[in-house]
């Protein structure tokens, strides 16, 4: 039996506020463009690897809109194809960390006791590492490659979610409707799932948007260092890396793929800011940072 004693969370005004927000007007088209690029990528496999051997490291031209790379491949095609990695990183790592972190945070916050102590001490330990440094350590242990980079980023993001969720749960669990549910005999799991989780949704949404920025940036950095996606598969960070090797020959090879990362991360940051204001979830730990 599930008795819904929790006050209903209405979503209507949130969407209205979001629709009027200038930041959302910038973010949504950019993110739409990202999704279109990722969807188009599978159809571009021919042009991604094709080399125009007569034109190495050229700037923008009518033949290659964003120029070519060091072996004559079209930079625009590679940026479009690289969008798949970015979208994949964003969904897989943040999705995994969101689920794992929420479960851990819910249990730690609601049950308290030694479970809470254990989860939080391990989180503290993991959070003491600078994000990229921990990701590097995980990649050092597992070896370079996209799969290991994804694991590394999910691992470093999980304690962040656990901490935020636990903090929320600690304040929610003292509310009357939680005590009421407990008194009428609703089980612990049901309380967590049906009564606490819906109230975490807003906070989690904002936090997830911010963590997507962080995850994309972390993967780009690992790719740039050559520790994530391996050639010849294109990823934005790796294209910038080859661009910095050839900066004096071609400015465009690093400028355009970097711009793609910059705009994507900025779009998620703007979306997070707009969402936070729309949900009125002003909390210091939701401030943009990385």
């Amino acid at each position, binding site marked *: 039996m599930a008795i819904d004693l929790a006050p209903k969370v209405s979503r209507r005004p949130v969407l209205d506020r979001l629709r009027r927000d200038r930041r959302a007007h910038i973010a949504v088209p950019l993110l739409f463009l990202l999704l279109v690029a990722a969807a188009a990528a599978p159809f571009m496999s021919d042009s991604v690897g094709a080399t125009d051997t007569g034109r190495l490291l050229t700037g923008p031209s009518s033949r290659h809109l964003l120029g070519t790379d060091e072996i004559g491949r079209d930079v625009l095609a590679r940026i479009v194809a690289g969008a798949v990695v970015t979208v994949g990183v964003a969904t897989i790592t943040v999705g995994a960390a969101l689920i794992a972190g929420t479960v851990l945070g819910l249990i730690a916050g609601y049950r308290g006791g030694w479970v809470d102590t254990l989860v939080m001490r391990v989180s503290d330990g993991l959070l003491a590492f600078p994000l990229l440094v921990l990701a590097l350590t995980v990649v050092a242990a597992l070896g370079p490659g996209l799969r290991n980079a994804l694991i590394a980023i999910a691992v470093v993001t999980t304690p962040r979610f656990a901490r935020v969720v636990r903090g929320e749960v600690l304040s929610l669990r003292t509310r009357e409707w939680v005590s009421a549910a407990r008194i009428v005999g609703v089980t612990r799991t049901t309380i967590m799932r049906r009564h606490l989780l819906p109230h975490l949704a807003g906070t989690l949404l904002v936090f997830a948007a911010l963590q997507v920025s962080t995850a994309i940036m972390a993967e780009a950095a690992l790719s740039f260092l050559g520790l994530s996606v391996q050639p010849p598969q294109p990823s934005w960070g790796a294209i910038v890396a080859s661009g910095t090797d050839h900066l004096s020959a071609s*400015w465009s090879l*690093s400028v355009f793929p970097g711009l793609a990362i910059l705009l994507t991360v900025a779009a998620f940051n703007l979306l997070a800011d707009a969402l936070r204001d729309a949900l009125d979830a002003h909390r210091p730990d939701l401030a943009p940072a990385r």
Partner: protein
Amino acid sequence: MTGYLVRRLFQLIPVALVVSLVLFMLLRLMPGDPTLAILGQEATEQDRAVLREDLGLDAPLWQQFTQWLGDLVRGDLGSSWLTDEKVGTVISDRFAATVELGVIALVFAVLVGIPAGILAAVRRRTRTDTALNSVGLLALSAPHFYLAALLILVFALWLKVLPPSGYVPFTEDPVENLRRMVLPAVTIGSTIAAVTMRQTRAALLAAFNEDYIRTAEASGLSRGRIVGVYALRNAIVPVVTVIALQIGALMSATVVTETVFTVPGMGTLIVNGIFSRDLPVVQGAVLMVVVLVLLVNLLADLVYAWLDPRITY
């Protein structure tokens, strides 16, 4: 105050224990045999067995950990698998460049971030405010390696006013050292400058609503004095907190930025260590970075008391 310091140091013990356990486990869990990484693929099984025993890799995992931790407490981080050099020595050779880079980056961030935050707060909801916020957002959204590439492109290749990369020790040639530090330090400091600006702006706007500001205005104090002395003094504590919380991010930024500018610091040490699978070096360097971050955060807590006399420990 002393009591507080001791308490805080005690609180660091479980964190340090988890950190060392994580580091130890992660690097022992790696697939493949480290003896192959050291001796190369053509090593004989016998050579490898001898080396395994030398490195203590044949002992049970818990014994390896207590051994490692024991050495660590005595200040022994082990030896590089590649060069046999003491990890402690390798790190101390690299530490100065990273610390110098971090300090210059922080100075840049404070010198740019706080005035920009004040300007944005005083001119709130004007074009200046919007422009500063937009620049801040871009600085927060640009990966450091990208910013580094842009700065090299503009200042080293187009304007030719600064060297594109490389490092000269301060003791050798202070002027050349600083010239080479400018671009990497600005790269690293940009994010922190943006965060500092946002926090200064927000804290000042909150302070402007306080009663004591209205009183100060009513008593006819100049605007500069109200903002600079009354509001800023109260707004500065959260700003210090935010800057201190950025130290971890600063170290992350340093790793990538050092690689781009070929600065021989902790970052390049870690990255090169990963590529050559020199685990003791990676372990030791990462540990030092974490210890540095924890100590800076402790220091920041002590600075609050000095900035805000109401805080007592």
